[in-house]
């Protein structure tokens, strides 16, 4: 078989494959539900109800989407420049660590100063976390996929070490968790009484900012150019190493904001289970969004809804909650294929 580029894809050609990918994902979900001895439509209903069926569920979904928007943006920014950052998980924890280091009383400042300082410091930490692999890629040609993946494991061990050592909460009754954040360091709730914090607004803001950088600035143009045609970008005088470094800094910083917002907005302290794989799920989010920064918001909401809905559903039905991970991983693969098929036609040789 041969793939033939399509000169001017029709609207149908642009819409159909992604829709089919989602239909296939839903079909897999139905099969999995059947395998668990449940009624597919009932399971689907429970997932939808659990995700958006009540005010509580909806807020839970928005809260769950918040870190995913950040990690999704981090991945989208990096992948657009062909920097394969699979280390958003580690960068998230780097941001969380800095939040705890600075937010538990080290800086006696009011919120209006303290919170922006912590957020920036977290971004710097996340950026540094990805600069290592970026420099190794530029300097030695070491594949950043493997280094960022390995650093995820290293970072978790660092966090574990600190939570059992320097950062251990003396009041924690032996649990490996950090002390609670000072009140001034906590992100307030958007509406009093509702469990939704300003981290969500920050995430939306970040998405818009990334979109503007992407479309309106020379720096964003250069990142896209390096990703879409490195040789041509280099030839045109774009400093490729500099662009890779800038991309790494932006991507790592965005991922770190996920850790910042989870600690400062939601949890109030750091534990080893802060992230149930938000860094990896960010890849799913970014690919479902076709690497579009605004699409990341929608994709993150969708993914969060599936997770929250599946959690709630599995309490009611005998279907393991891992159905969500499975469906999303499948959706990732199906969507990558579908997006290619919007631009290429499959023909016999």
């Amino acid at each position, binding site marked *: 078989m041969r793939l033939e580029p399509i000169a001017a894809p029709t609207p149908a050609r642009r819409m159909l494959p992604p829709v089919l990918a989602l239909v296939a994902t839903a079909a897999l979900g139905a099969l999995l539900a059947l395998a668990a001895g449940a009624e597919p439509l009932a399971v689907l209903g429970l997932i939808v109800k659990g995700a958006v069926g009540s005010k509580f569920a909806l807020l839970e979904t928005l809260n769950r989407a918040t870190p995913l928007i950040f990690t999704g943006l981090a991945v989208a920014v990096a992948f657009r420049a062909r920097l394969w950052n699979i280390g958003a998980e580690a960068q998230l924890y780097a941001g969380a660590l800095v939040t705890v280091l600075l937010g538990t009383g080290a800086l006696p400042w009011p919120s209006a100063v303290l919170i922006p300082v912590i957020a920036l410091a977290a971004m710097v930490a996340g950026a540094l976390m990805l600069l290592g692999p970026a420099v190794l890629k530029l300097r030695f040609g070491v594949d950043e996929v493997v280094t960022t993946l390995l650093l995820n494991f290293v970072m978790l061990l660092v966090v574990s070490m600190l939570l059992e050592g320097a950062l251990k909460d003396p009041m924690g009754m032996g649990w490996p968790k950090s002390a609670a954040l000072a009140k001034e360091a906590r992100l307030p709730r958007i509406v009093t009484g509702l469990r939704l914090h300003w981290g969500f607004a920050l995430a939306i803001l970040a998405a818009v900012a990334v979109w503007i950088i992407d479309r*309106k600035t020379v720096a964003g143009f250069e990142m896209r150019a390096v990703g879409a045609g490195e040789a041509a970008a280099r030839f045109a005088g774009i400093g490729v190493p500099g662009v890779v470094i800038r991309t790494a800094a932006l991507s790592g910083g965005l991922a770190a904001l996920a850790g910042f917002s989870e600690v400062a907005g939601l949890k109030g302290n750091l534990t080893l289970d802060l992230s149930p794989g938000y860094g990896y799920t960010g890849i799913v989010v970014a690919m479902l969004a076709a690497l579009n920064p605004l699409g990341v918001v929608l994709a993150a909401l969708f993914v969060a809804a599936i997770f929250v809905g599946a959690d709630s559903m599995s309490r009611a039905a005998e279907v393991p909650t891992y159905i969500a991970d499975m469906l999303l991983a499948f959706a990732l693969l199906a969507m990558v294929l579908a997006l290619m098929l919007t631009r290429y036609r499959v023909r016999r040789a």
Partner: protein
Amino acid sequence: MTPALRLTGVTKRFGTLVANDAISLSVAAGEVVALLGENGAGKTTLMNILFGHYTADGGTIEVGGQALPPGQPRAALAAGVGMVHQHFTLAENLSVLDNLMLGTRGLWRLRSGRAAARARIEALARDFGLAVDPMARVADLSVGERQRVEILKALYRDARVLILDEPTAVLTPQEAEALFSTLRKAVAKGLAVIFISHKLHEVMAIAHRVVVLRHGRAVGEVAIGGTSPAQLAAMMVGAEVAAPAIAPAREGGVALRLAGVSTAGFRPDLRGVDLDLVAGRITGLAGVSGNGQGALASLIGGLTSPVAGRIEIGGAPVQGWSPRRAVGQGIARIPEDRHHTGTIGDFSLTENAVLETLRDPRFSRAGWIDWAAARTHTSRLIAAYDIRCPGPDARIRLLSGGNMQKLILGRVLEEAPKVILANQPVRGLDIGAVTFVQERLLEARARGAAVLLISEDLEEVTALSDVIHVMSEGRLSPGFARGTIGTADLGLWMAGQGFDHAA
């Protein structure tokens, strides 16, 4: 007698484009048939169908009277069709022997039988005059040697029909002569040869019969005894070719000077090259590709800095040499590979048009892009350079090679450059685009730009250049003024002779 190969009514469409339109042709054993045509006439597509890389939409292929199943390279090989591709298909990190043996024994056999294979290869090499060391790594071989490996590959598989796609593009005239002698031995042993070319004198020298392709159709077939280069040329392009009219040069001062420059990291590197590019003059650079043209183009284009010697622009040595600096100093760069280095396929025409100049105040302020200005600029280029496209927002990948090249031309020529680096500017373009590009270069010359034209097409270089240099293994010959050197002498320089005396 049954012909060794017969194609009947072969048709192939890509979308709306008819690449091959009911082409029929046959070759007998012991005969060389030339397939002559412009770039884009459908020669390579036809051969890819014959070899099974593509499946035809219609028509049949017979080898030795047996129909060939479509779309199966394996069947073509088994039937005795051997193909020497324009771009070699060798695994560079493997030995010659490995490359030759690849796929010749059942995959699930336990032994590879290297000793016997080696003996056979050495015998074939002797018989056909194709000296090459079977144990050498392909990466260490010269281009000419690699081509011999490609031919041996076909002979090793007992090819009865040998197809060569533009085989001389990478050879010096002398190497080409050696190739012809091998081909004559091959036809003497009863092989049928298809020789694909767009070079008339080669076709006249080696072929018995010529089939001319134009726009995907076989438009004529003549025996070599009954034709002339002029007639072939007319058949090929469909009309008399008008060579571009060239006014006498009005030369100015030296716009760019290379003084004893050497490079590092290329194969081969430049070795102490001196070169003056003079305003109002086209300086032609002839030579077999891969002899240092890449290093020279990188150097002038700002992608490489010299490790010895210096670059002077307008008499002053350059500092901090980079692509951006080169553009800033008024160097227009037309890259060799317009798909890979010249443009970004998934970017729009507008984005490609401002790729080099985006930081210019015309298109951005303090890091913010003025897309409206960029689009206006691109629309102007589209009109001025007759770029056929859906509009400035279309992805450039959708454009033909000629239109892509016109955008690149517009991108650099609109900046009123002092120096123009044109690296293979017309390769792969159809005749209309070729004329367009050459006329633009001549216009720039008339305006007083210094043009460096790098081309492996001797006819193009001799037609356009006021002064010709030859490159061989990273060395540069003295300059020869228009009309002071013939093809044979150029060939000797291309093969590396003359440099020792000159040095």
